[in-house]
């Protein structure tokens, strides 16, 4: 498995669009980009006119070859970089991109004729790298079973709503924590252990598992997965949050 080498790249914003009420999808053209490893992230560096620099990490939503890089950035209240990216950054603006980063949290198609199934577990905007994996799987010959369990605050906070609905090779289960869609029989509440057990591939199937979300979400879910009997080496985690 050869992954793409990490380097700094100059990028230009080619499109911006509202993803949710608080998040924005940003597409960058990166002429020297080596392509997208599904699940990876990048560091974005902004430089102010006085030379002040700020760097933040964002997961990559795009996958596969090409020089286009798609990010979905959720605005963090009182943040320094994310409000700029969500509200101010405009088409044509230059940004510096460091990546692709994070080989630990990358999914690549398997050459195995009978590959292990894959379970994705997302909390909030943690769905971004997991969506990239599902999209990469969709285009590949990899025959593994894919499932995504996505915990989200409200129906309006769902990232990649249309793209997730269009996935034909990934079963997607949504659980809503603050408000549920009309007609949903599940009351809005945090994901509970029994649901995690019921809505994910069990340890008997020996799935590879990728969990991404806030630190409390990831630590709760990974603890439940290990207690359910999944092998520690099968569970890969990525936490986000903190600086904004």
């Amino acid at each position: 498995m050869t992954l793409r080498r990490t380097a700094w790249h100059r990028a230009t914003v080619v499109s911006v669009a509202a993803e949710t009420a608080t998040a924005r999808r940003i597409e960058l053209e990166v002429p020297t980009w080596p392509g997208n490893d599904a699940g990876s992230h990048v560091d974005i560096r902004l430089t102010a006119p006085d030379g002040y620099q700020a760097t933040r990490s964002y997961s990559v939503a795009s996958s596969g070859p090409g020089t286009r890089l798609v990010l979905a950035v959720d605005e963090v209240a009182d943040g320094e970089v994310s409000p700029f990216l969500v509200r101010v950054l405009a088409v044509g603006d230059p940004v510096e991109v460091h990546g692709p980063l994070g080989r630990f949290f990358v999914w690549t198609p398997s050459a195995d004729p009978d590959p292990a199934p894959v379970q994705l577990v997302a909390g909030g905007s943690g769905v971004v790298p997991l969506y990239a994996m599902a999209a990469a799987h969709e285009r590949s010959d990899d025959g593994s079973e894919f499932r995504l369990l996505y915990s989200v605050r409200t129906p309006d906070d769902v990232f990649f709503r249309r793209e997730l609905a269009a996935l034909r090779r990934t079963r997607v289960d949504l659980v809503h924590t603050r408000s549920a869609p009309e007609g949903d029989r599940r009351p809005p509440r945090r994901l509970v252990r029994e649901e995690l057990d019921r809505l994910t591939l069990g340890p008997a199937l020996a799935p590879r598992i990728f969990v991404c979300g806030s630190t409390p979400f990831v630590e709760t879910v990974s603890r439940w997965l290990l207690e359910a009997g999944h092998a520690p080496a099968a569970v890969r985690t990525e936490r986000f949050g903190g600086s904004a």
Partner: protein
Amino acid sequence: MTHLDGNACAGALSDLFGDDVTLALGRCAGCGHDAVLAEVVAYVTAMGTVLRCAPCQAVLAVLVTTASERVVDLTGLSSLRLAAPADGG
């Protein structure tokens, strides 16, 4: 403050090592625990990053970037195992 994990400093580590090292295996000089760098505990601030061993909480590494230099303290890591580069370099 809330901690993250070693994935969060993949970029800073890449600047030092020349490539992504989140899969490198680090050994805690305190308790001997082996962990891939993606899975160690990371405290990330504007001033820099502190990496800690998840089981014993000893400091593994401190990374600080200023306008003029990068300062790295790796005394908490007794060893670091990195895969050989695919291109032989």
